[in-house]
């Protein structure tokens, strides 16, 4: 019945309708009259309202004149029925009814060294991939940036296509973005942009996916990569990258090595992964990599980020000996500022911090990390026969004011020992929210 009604309207419009060419102003794929990326009932409703009308009447009518003959008629209806609940790679007025390809981009969280450890390989969820904060973050990879552990600043991005071998291209919103088919930028593996669009991507005839590596070459900001047909601007999927301005360092306690999957009793690393998953550039270390003079791999990683990747904001947090190492690293960074460059330590946090002069150091770490803008401090009171008297303590000018939170004054932490203080959800949640509030990604 519905189709009979439509047919009558179409015939009527053919006889009596105006003859103004339409479709040229429609930016959407054929039959996607409302431009929401899919062809469904809502498009049909708009199309039906335009049947027999002047294509210039409204945008949806312009988009309804799919063959561009100046009329919204039976031919357009035929095209619509072909494309209903499908996709098109064409735009009005050039619609032929050919079924287009589908494509999905999946970006991953940043690499570390030769892979992802100490993090699992983590895809950015579809619902976050265009979020300017929670979406994929990317390190600036300036020329001459020789990563200590080898090239790991490129972000992995997988393009899934249907049907296999579909012809698709990438469009970028900024020339800061470059795309490669190899993770280490092997010569000859760069995908060239002409202007800001590539030619058809090297997707083999039977291939349903292509792994790409995205590089951000200079300057802060955000930029998108979209996948679209080579000859039109129909966006199949889109990913928004944010270039990291900051680096976050997490230091576990004595004998808390990093692991994949994370040990749920290593609260520092649980927080580290939580922040990694919401778009921060987090680096997690065993506290042993920080010497008592603050030097070592963690320090070198931060300095490299500042010197070579334009990073100017630093956050460091640690538990037990990792808290002592947080102080040592902040101290060394502050002492060596003149040779490193301009940066701020925006955030530090101790969880029951113990000095880390050595593996056998048992003294409280009570010093505020030098030059930190915000310091969060959690501590409990140790006793010899309960937790070897290991504990942190009040630290001047800490949060919560004035000296941090003695968790034994809270209902949830009243019986805490040193060995479990880092695992309380309340401790981890406060760390996560204060990082979010004090550190720019």
């Amino acid at each position: 019945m519905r189709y009979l009604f439509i047919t009558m309207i179409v015939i009527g419009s053919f006889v009596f309708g105006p003859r103004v060419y339409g479709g040229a102003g429609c930016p959407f794929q054929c039959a996607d009259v409302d431009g929401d990326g899919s062809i469904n009932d809502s498009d049909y409703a708009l199309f039906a309202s335009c049947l027999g009308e002047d294509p210039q009447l409204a945008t949806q009518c312009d988009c309804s004149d799919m063959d561009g003959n100046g009329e919204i008629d039976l031919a357009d209806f035929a095209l619509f029925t072909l494309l209903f609940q499908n996709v098109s790679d064409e735009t009005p007025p050039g619609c032929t009814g050919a079924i287009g390809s589908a494509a999905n981009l999946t970006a991953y969280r940043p690499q570390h060294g030769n892979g992802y450890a100490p993090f699992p390989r983590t895809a950015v969820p579809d619902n976050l991939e265009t979020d300017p904060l929670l979406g994929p973050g990317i390190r600036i990879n300036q020329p001459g940036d020789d990563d200590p552990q080898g090239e790991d600043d490129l972000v992995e991005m997988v393009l899934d296509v249907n049907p296999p071998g579909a012809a698709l291209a990438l469009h970028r919103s900024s020339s800061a973005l470059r795309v490669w088919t190899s993770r280490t930028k092997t010569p000859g593996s760069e995908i060239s942009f002409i202007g800001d669009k590539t030619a058809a991507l090297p997707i083999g005839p039977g291939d349903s996916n292509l792994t790409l590596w995205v590089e951000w070459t200079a300057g802060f900001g955000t930029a998108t990569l979209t996948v679209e047909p080579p000859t039109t601007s129909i966006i199949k999927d889109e990913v928004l990258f944010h270039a990291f301005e900051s680096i976050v360092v997490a230091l576990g306690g004595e004998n808390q090595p990093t692991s994949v999957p994370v040990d749920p009793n290593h609260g520092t690393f649980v927080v580290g992964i939580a922040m990694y998953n919401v778009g921060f550039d987090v680096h997690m270390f065993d506290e042993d990599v920080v010497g008592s003079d603050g030097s070592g791999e963690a320090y070198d990683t931060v300095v490299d980020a500042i010197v070579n990747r334009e990073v100017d904001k630093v956050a460091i947090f640690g538990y037990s000996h990792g808290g002592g190492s947080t102080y040592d690293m902040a101290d060394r960074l502050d002492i060596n500022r003149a040779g490193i460059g301009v940066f701020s330590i925006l955030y530090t946090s101790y969880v029951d911090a113990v000095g880390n002069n050595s593996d056998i150091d048992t003294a409280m770490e009570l010093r505020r990390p030098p030059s930190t803008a915000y310091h969060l401090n959690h501590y409990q009171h140790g006793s010899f026969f309960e937790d070897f008297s290991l504990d942190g303590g009040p630290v001047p000018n800490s949060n919560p004011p004035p000296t941090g939170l003695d968790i034994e004054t809270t209902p949830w932490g009243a019986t805490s020992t040193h060995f479990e203080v880092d695992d309380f959800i309340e401790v981890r949640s406060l760390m996560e929210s204060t990082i979010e509030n004090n550190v720019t990604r």
Partner: protein
Amino acid sequence: MREKSKMTTMKLHRFNSLTRLTLVVLCVCATNAKAAENKTVSTDSKDAVVAADSKMQSLFGEFALADDAATREGLWDQLRQLDRTNRAALIQQLTLFASEAQSTRSSMVAGVVIKELKMTGEDVVAALVPMMTTDESTLQKQIKGTLAEFEDQSASRPPDFSMYRALIATEIREGREAPVALVLHMFDVDPGAALIAMTRATQMREPSKIREILWAEHTVSDSIWKQTHGFIDRDTVEPQVSVQLERLANHSEWWARLYVPAAMKRYPVLKSVDLLENLQGDPNETVATAAERLIR
């Protein structure tokens, strides 16, 4: 002197190879008690091999895991008794335990016992230095991590090697070799401070020879200071630094030559393949090995 040092190093090397696949540690338990008393240390640890003491290891394990005060208090009494019997052996066994620890709780036992029993730096150093020849990397790491407690180093303060210097000076004064593993540790922690400490520990007396070493160390560390604080580019090696490194690479004392690969390891920008290649053929095996590892 050079040949004697070489022979000692070679003996140590052969000995290390023999024990590479064992879990035992190189220490001289009986000698250690004496060493702790006299604050001296044997440079040749082939006299005896002592494995982990299973009773003590069990005791530490129980102490770490005890979940009530009464149990732990009883165990603590046993630990105090062990300390009274043989402090050096207790320190060594604690260090072994810590090197095998799998949790924060276990790994902190050594520190807690050392602190609560008021063991001094001299006690710990005398007990651990003979163990430093071990090939077990986790044990080596634990020993170094323990000794750091008494080196008092920070970002603004160089390490204090005075305890090591006194110990090495005693060895040399009494006609023995400096303990190679300890010397290597010092150069690993801070090549410049180690070079100066060795100049004193070996009782160098000729002012011109002392000045030669002082000037070389000052030249290198001054240049590193300029790099660190941005007065020169991070990748710049000043010509005078290369000159001083070459002089030290040809110095008559093996520990002065050892400074060259140690400094290049610590500050990779200083790395000179030519110098390292020359040092690979050094008559002192410690120096040759250090150079070889760096160039590899």
